């Protein structure tokens, strides 16, 4: 008898603890559905500044979310005719830019109006697009998916296509714990993938870590870079993420005024985002509209091609940049040392199927 009462007491106490706990938190029910995503850690490379905001704060980075984002990134079903996944314009072998295309090729034989940017180190980028129109990494995919010159699809249709695919239903549930696929989950998953793409393993980085040394030409190029380019293309990201007019002539056909199209401010006319230069040897053609096909042409622009009478021209460029022929050669050597083979070959970022 005493023994039985003792057992009853034990059961009672354990049950009480369980019930009190269940009143306090609701996540026991969640755990019962088998929702156990594996957390991933986002690391800031040694010596780098912290990102301006934590892009994973309200979008916890998990293996399931990352893999879902990866699948979505490579899936043509996000486009109207099935031929244009995100990866069609953002190719890993080109550091997630479009190799050798001035403009991206979009749905129904269309061209985009700007050169597709490379995708890496996006956690440090507060505004996306050449004109900074997109203010959050999660909102970025809405633009290419719905743009008639790009993927030409509606978000509604994309969700319909995803919802009838059982493997997506499984993956969304594993990543977010819900049975319904929403636009928010799709966008957060894509942000987990694209936000995870980092580039910090170029020869330049090895040199900075004391693991390699520059050739004489690279070193001379680096010194020239620091005295002539570094103000806008600030290390270690090789951009200060500002918007500047670098003195390109307005294209009469495209009539692209850049940042002004977003702010409506005439002072922003012809300003575009300063692009990061990591992997720059692979991201040609250059400039917002891809009008320069080689690094040599780009450097030539800065030393002789800048249209110096433009009212909004960046003050740093009003006298153009004095660059000798030898410096030009050395600069290109240095820029080639910004190529990150680890990024280009990282299987985690490659097509999953």
């Amino acid at each position, binding site marked *: 008898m005493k023994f039985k009462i003792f057992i*009853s007491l034990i059961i009672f106490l354990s049950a009480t603890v369980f*019930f*009190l706990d269940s009143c306090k938190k609701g996540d026991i029910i969640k755990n019962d559905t088998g929702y156990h995503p594996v957390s991933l850690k986002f690391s800031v490379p040694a010596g780098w500044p912290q990102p301006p905001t934590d892009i994973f704060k309200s979008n916890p980075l998990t293996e399931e979310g990352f893999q879902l984002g990866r699948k979505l990134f490579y899936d043509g079903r996000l486009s109207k005719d099935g031929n244009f996944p995100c990866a069609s314009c953002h190719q890993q072998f080109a550091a997630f830019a479009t190799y050798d295309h001035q403009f991206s090729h979009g749905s129904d034989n269309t061209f985009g109006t700007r050169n597709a940017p490379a995708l890496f180190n996006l956690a440090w980028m507060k505004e996306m697009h050449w004109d900074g*129109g997109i203010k959050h*990494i999660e*909102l970025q995919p*809405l633009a290419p998916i719905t743009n008639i010159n790009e993927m030409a699809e509606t978000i509604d249709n994309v969700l319909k296509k995803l919802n009838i695919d059982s493997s997506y239903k499984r993956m969304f549930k594993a990543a977010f714990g819900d049975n319904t696929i*929403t636009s928010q989950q799709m966008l957060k998953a894509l942000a987990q993938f694209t936000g995870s793409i980092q580039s910090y393993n170029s020869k330049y980085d090895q040199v900075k870590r004391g693991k390699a040394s520059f050739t004489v030409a690279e070193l001379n190029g680096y010194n020239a870079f620091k005295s002539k380019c570094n103000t806008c293309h600030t290390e270690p990201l090789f951009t200060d993420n500002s918007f500047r007019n670098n003195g390109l002539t307005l294209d009469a056909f495209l009539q692209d005024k850049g940042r002004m199209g977003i702010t*409506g401010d005439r002072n922003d006319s012809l300003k575009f985002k300063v692009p990061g230069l990591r992997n720059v040897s692979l991201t040609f053609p250059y400039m917002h509209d891809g009008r320069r096909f080689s690094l040599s042409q780009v450097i030539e622009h800065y030393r002789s091609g800048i249209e110096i009478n433009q009212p909004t021209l960046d003050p740093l460029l009003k006298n153009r940049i004095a660059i000798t022929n030898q410096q030009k050669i050395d600069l290109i050597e240095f820029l080639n040392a910004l190529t990150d083979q680890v990024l280009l070959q990282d299987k985690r970022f490659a097509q999953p199927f």
Partner: protein
Amino acid sequence: MIRSSNFFLSVCSAILLLSSCVGKAPLYIKGKVKLTFRNMVSGSPMALNTSVYTNPFAETYTISKFKYYISNVKLGLSGVPTTATDKDGYHLVDQSLPESLSFSFEADEGSFVTLSFLIGVDSIRNVSGAQTGALDPLKDMFWTWNSGYIMAKMEGTSPQSNQAGNKIEYHIGGFSGANNALRYVSSIYPNGKTVAIRSGQTSEIILEADFNKWWQTPNDIKIKDLPVCTTPGVLAIKVADNYSDMFRIVDVVNH
């Protein structure tokens, strides 16, 4: 012996059931506030597509879409900063969806004499990444190329429009700097009425929104000159200034 231990177990279970959810008892006594929006055009209930309206410049038009966001709703006490707030409430009022024309939220007991809200989605939500519910980009109130919410939208036709199909479109948005089209509405209930929130009861505030306010005061918007507004900027600001005056509280009912 077995009986007595069973008895012991049942008593324990009863205590357990009674005690297990004590922590759930509300700390405050709450009632509900319901806001109901009646969309009007110059004194008549708005009818989509079928009715032809006339603006202050004698231009005729029809309305096919009329939608706007209401957020940051607060009830205020007289002269006291204490408020009842519809926290994290973002509501899309869509004339084509009757169920969207009213919404409710919980509030502490009290008598409130002022109502304020934002026409649109505050700037923080515009830069906080992918949203869901009323803020889902699927709601067709989101700009993808200059990311941000359309605060209020009207579409329709007018013979005075020089656009294809005589289309008129006013998509009003922009949340930062000189392009900020967010407008606060703040008003005192008419005729000295108060919203008296009582536990378990609902107080309803009925508002009218007069679309005809979009055309005039302080800014003249003539269809023949300005049939389309689809970007943040000067024109959007002008329309927002006009529509910031479109709401009137017509009644308060304490159920």
